[in-house]
């Protein structure tokens, strides 16, 4: 784990509260606005930031994140700008862990080694690459670990006894438990089932387990946060950005309404274990 990630989860454990992991799309609705959103996230209650890297063909994402990615690409978002966002954020905050999330092809075209070096230099802590399962670890995971960057793996309801050890191998930072079989922003997870699955995985590993997919409200976040080490919210944030736009352009409400939503869900996460 990077020092930032280790420190963050240690601090949360001390405070006995789950992490609030916020996903948003880099470059949506434009570069400047998304930097403002990113810089406001920690104060609004985000403990870990997932910075989305747009891809033309996001096969595990629902309509909200698909549309956000297309908006960002239209505004010229790419990997150099993603790193610029991280650098801008690090000017004021050297504690909040940043995890890049996206698909492999843009990284492969950029060059895997160069991607990792530039990410490390910019102040990134880890990555979640949706279409790189453990079978493909040589591509990016192993080189990332050798640079002390976290490679965060997804576990899902289809991850059975046989599969779990493979998923846990080489995972670092935290494990992202995808609470439903499906795409981002789909049906809401059932807290009881999630708690059972989390307990099951916890028996096999010491790394923190954050749960996401379909979590949209403070109440849901609180329910999930009772069992998990962290709650991930993405589509709800991305949808709030989308709803604030006029003709795909930011309005004066874009940053404020997005951060207000984050703050309201953060409240749910903070009270999860009270």
């Amino acid at each position, binding site marked *: 784990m990077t020092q930032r990630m280790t420190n963050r989860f240690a601090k949360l454990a001390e405070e006995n509260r789950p992490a609030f992991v916020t996903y948003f799309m880099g470059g949506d609705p434009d570069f400047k606005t998304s930097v403002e959103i990113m810089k406001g996230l920690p104060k609004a209650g985000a403990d870990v930031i997932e910075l989305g890297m747009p891809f033309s*063909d996001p*096969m595990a994402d629902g309509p909200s994140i698909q549309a956000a990615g297309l908006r960002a690409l239209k505004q010229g978002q790419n990997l150099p700008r993603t790193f610029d966002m991280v650098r801008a954020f690090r000017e004021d905050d050297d504690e909040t862990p940043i995890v890049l999330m996206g698909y492999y092809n843009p*990284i492969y075209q950029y060059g895997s080694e160069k991607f990792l070096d530039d990410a490390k230099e910019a102040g990134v802590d880890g990555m979640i690459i949706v279409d790189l399962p453990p*079978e493909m670890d040589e591509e990016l995971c192993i080189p990332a670990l050798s640079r002390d960057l976290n490679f965060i793996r997804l576990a*899902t309801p289809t991850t059975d006894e046989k*599969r779990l050890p493979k998923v846990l191998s080489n995972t670092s930072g935290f494990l992202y438990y995808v609470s439903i079989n499906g795409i981002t922003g789909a049906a809401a997870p059932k807290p009881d089932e999630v708690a059972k699955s989390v307990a099951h995985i916890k028996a096999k590993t010491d790394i923190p387990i954050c749960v996401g997919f379909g979590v949209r409200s403070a109440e849901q976040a609180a329910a999930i946060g009772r069992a998990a080490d962290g709650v991930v919210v993405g589509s709800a944030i991305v949808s709030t950005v989308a709803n604030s736009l006029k003709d795909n352009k930011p309005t004066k409400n874009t940053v404020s309404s997005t951060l207000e939503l984050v703050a309201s869900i953060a409240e749910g996460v903070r009270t999860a274990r009270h």
Partner: protein
Amino acid sequence: MNVQSPNSFRNGPDEEGQFGIFGGRFVAETLMPNILELDEAYAKAKKDPEFLSELEYLNKHYTGRPSPIYFAERLTEHLGGAKVYFKRDELNHTGSHKINNCLGQILLAKRMGKTRIIAETGAGQHGVASATVAARFGYPCMVYMGAKDVHRQSPNVFRMKLLGAEIESVTAGAGTLKDAMNEALRDWVTNVEDTYYLIGTAAGPHPYPELVRDFQSVIGKECREQIQEAEGRLPDMLVASVGGGSNAIGLFHPFLDDESVQIVGVEAGGKGLEGDEHCASLTAGRPGVLHGNRTYLLQDAEGQIEEGASISAGLDYPGIGPEHSWLKDTGRVDYVPIMDTEALEAFQLLCRLEGIIPALEPSHALAEVVKRAPTMDKDQIIVMNLCGRGDKDVHTVAEALGIKV
């Protein structure tokens, strides 16, 4: 990219599901257990005499295999060079080679205890073949089809509905095959427990490229016997169109180690390779990762996938099966583009000279034959895969020729 020639071109993929650097399993974790289960099921099935004999029975009595090879006498005379033969997979039940793969996969779905079938389709030929086998085996079937293709292939849309399939018109992206495949993958991730994804081409995560190739190789196996019976020897050249590349790999694979056989794959050159309205991923693309595999892709400098464009909905895909990428890099197969206009001319030529209305996909292969045959000796032999019939395309052709039907 140059890759050292292997001892055999017919041993792939390796244990990681790769042909050289191509192929692999680039999918979301949710799908991995399912893909490994499919791998296991297929490894068992291909060694099971019961599975093989059931497939053989269906190929013969349901599809009408073997499909004949046909000496195109008037076309040969017209071109004045090599003898041109067609492998006539357009005569199959459902009108194209797609049924070969669908029968194999539906038997796998049955063995795996799946209860629902999903498929993507471009021209609608694979959608029709999927809907057909789903009806035959009593499964509900959902077909994802780009909105643009739903419009330009409307006869096939109605055929699928008659066969009981549901059609989901996909408006994301440019509304063509790539976008349909994204939606099918999203459905699969959501319904992974009970759903079998019947991929229509020799692409996607391992083991799909391998198993689709194996089910389509019936084309090349039959062809090898038939041409030897007709001519007493192997052909000098094979030609087939490539979109995803399933009909081509089916014809090519049994011949890959026959050095004397020159092999040509024909890509959709659309309106020309200088612009962005084409689908020539091998000629104009570069290696990348999409839809579960590493392969040649049409993409921009930053790895965002570009939309292809072709008059033929079935070739309108920015990727290609990974084995073709490897065959290109090893130099075993030549891949060349054919423009929309050339395919249209070849389409009309075949109608008038041989009384066969071909699909627009093999019309691309035919246009390449029209170029090559005259430069060859009269005792040389070309076999072209006539992999689909053109009934579905008459509206598109009429529109392109400016004729109101």
